[in-house]
């Protein structure tokens, strides 16, 4: 779109075609404010930006019509930040975006009825994706309304508990092109509804039937689906071995199968499974029957298998050995919280599956350095290692991880014996982006300095209760990891404002948790607020020295803040009221604020237009006027009343020191 102006100055942007400007705009992804700044330059930029934007995530339903008119090319509408969407809003959406809208997310919204949905599905003929999860009051009439979206390809309706077979039947008949449907927790849907989906929607690729009261009856028709790739049957207690025997003829296309928590399936069912779906790549059998030799042998025939998850199951030594003997080479193995994982078994598996990329041995408390030695020596290509609470692994073993597994990107060492030597070794993993060191009591700033110097791609760092860490450690992280997005320094009692000042250089920081850092003051918080404009989550519970002075810059600069925990701080009415100016703010925890008055609280709550969840002391329930509570609830706010006694933050630590040797 060229804009010819009468002025003599030639705007260079006028020479660019709209498509080129769009390509430039495509590059402005990193900071949501960039596009806003762009649109504020001039009218033509404003119009260009309006045309360019395809995805909208509005905050308030009140502005929906205006926003939709401005962004006329919206194809994707994410309403997950609007807790309340009434039928009028849906009417407006259906009217304005009738030709463009392809995708809508209503998973966090409530207040609409089936008539609103009907107008949406009737007029938006191009609608391909609808997420209506958590619509717990949606009934069959609503499902019938959804069925009018004839071109629908993806439908998420988890936790739509009131929908029955009849509603799902309507969807099955109406939405012939469905490729994905999630019916998780739709407890009213049974064999008949699911069976009809399988009969009518031949294009289905992905089917989530978790926790549905389905039995063997609907399985044969599901397995006749020609394109089915992903089938989730988590917690389907009605399915047993007999039904898996029916799998024999079915489903060559199936690639991923989740049968977690299916208690009625034994090795017999699983072995019949293997003979029927040879192409399976991912198998999840979490919280299932014990992984014995027979099960492991039964799964041997899955020649394409790449990933298996056995979380929470009992694993026998023989079973683990048999897994090691499979001829396939696994890429992913999850043994999280599996009872019975021993050094012997794990070592055997590790030596056989040398291509392992992801290994989860969370809470395998019996393994020691033997396992780690074998894992690190054979699986050198590991990208993800999760070994929270492997308490028998000595500190020397962690050196091996750093030495041998250079490609690690994700490392969870929460609650382990790792020390500075280990950290120094781990710092060689230059691709590391997620590092969790919570409750690692042996590490100090020295070790962390190595990480900060070498792991420049670090995005997440969890230092929860690493009591040895001081300002110097944080400083190296803040300097060496500019991409840091999330940091947890909770209960680091020695941390002061200087750490926060240094962290304020991490411009992408969006989650900051400094719970229980008594030395932090409003000054440090102000620095964070000014520097980290993308801050979304903030937890400053137990920071006694933070008061209203810290809230004012926060309210002014952190316009993206969505969640804040202010419990046990020195914030008063003024600070709370100032926070109310953050339009995004949705979630507040305000327990035990000594300086908070009833009127201040009421005013702040009223002023927070977008608030969806407030945690308050139960005492306020009686004090706050009921009409006010009703009004806030009608706006979409959920109150959580807490009645916990005031706790001393040190009590937990004392407890910890007792249990950890």
């Amino acid at each position, binding site marked *: 779109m060229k804009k010819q102006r009468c002025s003599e100055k030639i705007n260079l942007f006028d020479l660019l075609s709209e498509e080129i400007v769009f390509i430039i705009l495509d590059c402005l992804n990193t900071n949501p404010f960039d596009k806003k700044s762009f649109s504020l330059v001039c009218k033509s930029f404003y119009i260009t930006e309006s045309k360019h934007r395809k995805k909208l995530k509005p905050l308030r339903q009140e502005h929906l019509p205006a926003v939709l008119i401005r962004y006329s090319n919206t194809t994707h509408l994410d309403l997950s930040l609007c807790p309340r969407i009434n039928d009028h809003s849906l009417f407006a959406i259906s009217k304005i975006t009738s030709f463009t809208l392809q995708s809508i997310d209503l998973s966090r919204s409530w207040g609409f009825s089936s008539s609103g949905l009907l107008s949406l599905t009737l007029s938006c003929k191009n609608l391909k994706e609808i997420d209506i999860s958590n619509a717990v009051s949606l*009934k*069959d009439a609503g499902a*019938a309304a959804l069925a009018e979206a004839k071109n629908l390809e993806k439908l998420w309706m988890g936790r739509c508990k009131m929908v029955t077979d009849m*509603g799902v039947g309507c969807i099955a*008949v109406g939405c012939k092109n469905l490729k994905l449907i999630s019916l998780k927790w739709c407890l009213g849907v049974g064999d008949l509804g699911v069976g009809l989906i399988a009969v009518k929607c031949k294009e289905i690729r992905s089917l989530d039937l978790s926790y549905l009261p389905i039995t063997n009856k609907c399985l044969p028709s599901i397995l006749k689906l020609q394109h089915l790739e992903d089938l989730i049957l988590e917690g389907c207690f009605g399915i047993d071995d007999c039904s898996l025997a029916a799998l024999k003829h079915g489903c060559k296309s199936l690639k991923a199968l989740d049968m977690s928590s299916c208690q009625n399936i034994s090795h017999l069912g699983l072995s019949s499974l293997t003979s029927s779906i040879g192409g399976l790549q991912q198998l999840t059998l979490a919280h299932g029957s014990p992984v014995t030799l027979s099960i492991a042998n039964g799964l041997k025939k899955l020649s394409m298998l790449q990933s298996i998850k056995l979380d929470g199951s009992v694993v026998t030594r023989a079973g683990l050995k048999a897994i090691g003997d499979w001829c396939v080479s696994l890429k992913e193995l999850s043994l999280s919280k599996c009872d019975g994982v021993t050094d012997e078994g794990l070592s055997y598996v590790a030596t056989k599956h040398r291509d392992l990329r992801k290994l989860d041995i969370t809470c395998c408390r019996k393994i020691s350095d033997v396992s780690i030695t074998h894992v690190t020596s054979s699986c050198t290509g590991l990208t993800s290692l999760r070994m929270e609470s492997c308490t028998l692994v000595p500190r020397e073993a962690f050196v091996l991880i750093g030495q041998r597994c250079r490609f690690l990107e994700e490392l969870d060492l929460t609650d382990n014996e790792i020390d500075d030597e280990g950290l120094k070794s781990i710092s060689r993993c230059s691709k590391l982006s997620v590092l969790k060191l919570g409750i690692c009591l042996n590490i100090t700033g020295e070790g962390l300095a190595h990480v900060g110097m070498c792991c420049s791609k670090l995005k997440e760092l969890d230092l929860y209760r690493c009591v040895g860490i001081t300002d110097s450690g944080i400083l190296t992280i803040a300097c060496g990891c500019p991409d840091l997005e999330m940091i947890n320094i909770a209960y680091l009692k020695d941390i002061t404002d200087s750490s926060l000042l240094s962290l304020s250089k991490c411009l992408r920081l969006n989650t900051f948790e400094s719970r229980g850092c008594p030395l932090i003051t409003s000054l440090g918080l102000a620095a964070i607020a000014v520097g980290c404009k993308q801050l979304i989550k903030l937890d400053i519970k137990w920071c006694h020295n933070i008061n209203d002075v810290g809230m004012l810059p926060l309210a002014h600069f952190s316009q993206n803040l969505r969640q804040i925990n202010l419990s046990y701080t020195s914030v008063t009415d003024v600070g709370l009221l100032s926070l109310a100016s953050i339009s995004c703010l949705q979630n507040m925890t305000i327990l035990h604020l000594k300086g908070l008055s009833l009127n201040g609280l009421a005013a702040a709550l009223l002023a927070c237009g977008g608030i969806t969840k407030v945690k308050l002391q139960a005492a306020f329930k009686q004090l706050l006027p009921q009409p006010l509570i009703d009004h806030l609830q009608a706006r979409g706010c959920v109150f959580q009343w807490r009645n916990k006694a005031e706790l001393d933050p040190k009590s937990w630590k004392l407890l910890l020191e007792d249990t950890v040797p």
Partner: protein
Amino acid sequence: MDLKEGLRAETWAKSSLAENEMSKRISSNNPCFTDFNSQQYQQKWEDPSILDYDIRINPAFQEFNQPPQNQSSLPCDPTNQIKNPFQMNENLQTNKMQDWDPKAMLNNLSFLEQKIHELQDLVHLIVGRRSQILGRPDELVAQQQQLITADLTSIIVQLISTAGSLLPSMKHTLSAATPSMGQLGQFGGVPFPPGAGLSDSIQVQNSCAKKVSNQSNPIDLVGNSGTQQNHAVEEHDLKDEDDADDGEQLPPGSYEILQLEKEEILAPHTHFCTICGKGFKRDANLRMHMRGHGDEYKTPAALAKPHKESSSEPMLIKRYSCPYAGCKRNKDHKKFQPLKTILCVKNHYKRTHCDKSYVCSRCNTKKFSVIADLKTHEKHCGKDKWLCSCGTTFSRKDKLFGHIALFQGHTPAIPLDETIKGLAGPSDRREGNEATSKIGSTNFNFGSSVPNGTGVSDMDAKGES
């Protein structure tokens, strides 16, 4: 069959005991019959809404055995009346065994004539007395009516028995002469032999006969009474659908085609007690009933199933034709498909060519011509909450989903308000229209077949409604 017989027998044995119970049930249905046991049998005769042929005759039969005490006041000797039919029936019984005897027939007819004369005299007497004692208590009137009823009953029974005795003998002589067979088969509607000066009693007689043949309501409701007493037996009957023999392919000519006339088809009972006149649908039930008439009927021989007459020579297979011209089940139809049994004929005729006069009391929409169909429907009526977009209702959800899986474009219909039950779908209404379109023709047929006594029956019907 053994089971059925047993059930029937039991039912019959109980029926006299259950009399009070039955009357209670009826009275609860119809408040004007609270005085059922006060011996107002005449009224019962004329009231089709009692719907129970068995019961209607049953008290009359009792009355024969235990005449009311105050009957002596009447001029006519009741014992004579009781005896005569008894002897007569014995004659008939023997006649049945032999070939048809014209002499015996003549005897029967003259006996009937005599009985009608007696009855005429009795009625004359009553008429005379009535003029004198106007304003007498109703009790006497009731007794008189009772007496006349008893007489009429025995006359009718004998008449039917006489006509019926012809049937088995004729079977042998006729090979494929179905039309004559049909004529003989009209024993339900055989015109009463006209006697001089008998107009009074004839009219009454005809009105009764017409009630039997003309009104499909009471006929089928007789079946209803049976259903009420023993459901299990009726369930068996229902299985014998008239289309059940579709798979069978008999070469034409390999079987004997019999065609019953519609009056015969619609007659409630085909087996009548020669003593008391009670009608039965099954011979086995009649045999059980006969036990009540004396020890001679209790012998194993009497209770046993009658031997098939020609067990030695191969029986020609019998198939049945529907009397309705143009019907596929009619033997003149190009693609004639015979019906297998008499029950098939009955059900087919009622379902296909009769008015669907039984309306479901629950939904007021579904109509049936066979009472058993109504009973079956009523069992499930109101449970049809599974509705398809095409209007079809299903009592079971899996049936609805099977239907939807089968047809393109059909979708589950969700009631606007889940609490309010949706009324019947369009398909039901359609059925109703079909039914009403048939009413005219059937009524016309009936009217033409029984020209006499229409006035009386109309009055009855009006009185009922």
